[in-house]
């Protein structure tokens, strides 16, 4: 239990500090992106065993040892592709969201990170008594993600829907004006990062514009909030990857 707690605290501290440093630093300079680099590296290498180990085990069971296909189906390419995709998507999403997150949202997201890390670690300890590795870890990952992200998604969606302020000028904006309002939330400084982030800001603004146009359909506003809350799944998975990474590297000093 204590070990799970320490791992979850480590995961929360690492993600929280990386993103906070990025948020504060981006107001000064684009070099703030360096704060996200360790996170990206860690997510990539942390994802690796989570993806490749179950694959290899399945392959080990399915493929005959003498088959020449075993060299082709090593799973490394697939793992690299999936890990890189996750790193790119998660880092971009988290970087974007943490720039605009309110203190309330940030608090809830940190709680989610901690809970996801803790529940993964705890459930892995439990599942490892019943399943072989890496399946225990595989199930713990899924369980940790779903058990935490699903309720937190609802909480974030509720907060986005009921408490998060949207700019009033959006109410009467045309589509083009809405996009401009969205992009204007970025610091005035141009650059590659701003160009990349502008797509996400524009997407969010376009979504909000659509909700305003069809405000009589309440479900659309709910979907808007849910969409914003889906970030919870990415964050939960990122937390689990880092918690697992910590777990793998918290061995005692080798003799």
């Amino acid at each position: 239990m204590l070990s799970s707690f320490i791992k979850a605290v480590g995961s929360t501290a690492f993600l929280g500090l990386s993103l906070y440093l990025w948020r504060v630093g981006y107001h000064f300079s684009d070099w703030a992106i360096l704060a996200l680099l360790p996170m990206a590296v860690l997510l990539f290498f942390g994802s690796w065993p989570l993806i490749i180990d179950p694959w290899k085990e399945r392959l080990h069971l399915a493929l005959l040892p003498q088959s020449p296909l075993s060299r082709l189906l090593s799973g490394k390419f697939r793992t690299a592709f999936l890990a890189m995709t996750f790193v790119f998507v998660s880092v971009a999403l988290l970087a974007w969201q943490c720039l605009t997150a309110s203190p309330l949202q940030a608090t809830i997201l940190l709680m989610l990170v901690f809970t996801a890390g803790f529940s993964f670690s705890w459930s892995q300890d439990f599942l490892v008594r019943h399943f072989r590795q890496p399946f225990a870890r595989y199930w713990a990952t899924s369980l940790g993600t779903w058990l935490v992200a699903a309720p937190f998604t609802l909480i974030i969606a509720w907060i986005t829907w009921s408490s998060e302020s949207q700019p009033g000028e959006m109410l009467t904006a045309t589509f083009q004006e809405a996009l401009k309002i969205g992009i204007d939330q970025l610091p005035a400084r141009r650059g590659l990062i701003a160009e990349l982030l502008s797509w996400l800001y524009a997407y969010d603004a376009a979504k909000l514009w659509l909700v305003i146009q069809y405000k009589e359909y309440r479900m659309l506003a709910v979907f808007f909030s849910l969409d914003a809350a889906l970030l919870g799944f990415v964050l939960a998975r990122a937390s689990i990857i880092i918690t697992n990474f910590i777990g793998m590297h918290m061995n005692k000093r080798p003799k």
Partner: protein
Amino acid sequence: MSEPTENFKKKNITPMASTVRYTVGHLFWGTIIVFAIASLALTVLAVMQPVKDDTGSEELTNNSDPELPTTFLEKILLGASKEALDVVLPDIEKLVEEAYKPVDDAIAPYADFHYSVPGQYIELTQAARGIMADRIHDRLFDGLSERLNDVASNVDEKFETAFEAALDAQIAELFEADQEGLPIGPLSDMVITDTRERLMLTAPIATTAVAVTAGASLKIASKTIASKLGLKVAAKVAAKQATKGGGALVGAGSGAALCSWAGPGAAVCAVVGAAAVWFTVDAAAIQLDEQMTRDEFEKDLNELVDDDKDFRTQKLKEALKKRAVAMDEGAKKALAEFTLKQLSDPETVALCQQSNALLTGYGVFQDDLRTRTSSAIEEYRRTLEELRNRKDSAATILAPLVMEIDKNLEMHGYGIEIKQIQLSGNFPSDYLGYRDLDGRLTLGDQTVTLERNTSTVEVEFSLQSPTNLKNLKINRKEPITIHMALIQDRRIFRDRMFGRSILIKEDEFFDAIPNTAGPQKTLNFPFNLALYESRDDFQVIDWRETSARRNANLRLDISGSSLPDIEKIPSCFED
């Protein structure tokens, strides 16, 4: 505890891997410590020292600082533009005056040129070639366009500086008590930063008033001067032609007689003599002309330049006012926020319905001038104010609409102009006759002279003002008092003076507006015309209370300012 599968086990237990993992573990916790220290340092830096971003605006990033109330933010943002306007508007006149100084200074040299023999011929040639306006532009307005551009940029800069200063002063005033700097929360800071950023981009007059400062518009002024000057030059030359034609003939004749000694060169001598006489006469004529008309010429030029100066000063002032209004609009929009819950709240739907009623009310004001009494507009605006002040869940969604309606009403709702006045009727039977009539009418502090007409014994008299009177507005703050005077011209006999002063209260005025379509209305106020010794004796009457039989009628053709259509109706009202 279950064992890992054989395949999995083999891969995870090498001593080398264990060492690497131990090192990476240290690196991980080390990274956290480094990040924690860096975060702390950056946070302290952000709090202690306001950070300038690329736009030069200051950004404060302490999330724990208090947010300013929206009403206060609105007050300081709107107050800043008003203060900046008050500071800069009086300067425009001085700046334009400075820009026109070289033009004023160029008038005397231009008059010297104009009243010289070569100058006259050059002007004539320019007029014939149609380039007079260009040359006048070169001589008088050279460099003015650039100087006016500088004025526009200068005014922009002063406005921005004054705006920033007013903003800073207001914020500083708020925190004067604790002297702890400017601890503004991030949301309030965002609104203020946004306002500072918008300041540079919102309708700078160097851009919006380009028509005022552009060289092309100055060419129009040059053309006006050229056309007036061209007429003068042509008239002057025509007058001289007659004089000088005779003079030249005399010069040629007397020259031929005087040059008879020259023998074969007599003809050439005669031509030179004629030319000398021509130019001598010309110079004398110009000198005489200068003596007689130079002062008037310079005065005319000065007046034309002053008119142009006034026109541009006015336009620059208008452009600056528009800039201030645009800043206010932006600030109001930035302050209005909403949540998605509010957007689809049943309360919002109810509020939408209420606002539909508001739009209907606005439509009535738009369509029917009779409804625009001060009390009705004030009452309606009070409802708008109540809506604006509501802090419940859905009021913010309607804020832009409410503000637009209110602005339209404030700017156009009260405006009623008199376009034409007609006075008609019959004199008492003892005074009927075939006589010329003059009429004058005073409304508030403005006087309108009616066009002269003739009265007869059979037909009632009718005097009218010129059509499309300018700037004759109804002042709603006090009852309208109209003094009317009619003078019957009796040629060799003493003129007769008729008149009456009538007092029209606002509700009476609006009651008199007929129920007809369109913004132009005709109002009739019958009254009793009386004979007076002088205009000062006119008795002021409340026209409705006169019991005597009315023998005259005052007709006012009025026009209400048209209320603009609402531009940005939130989507829930569009159906």
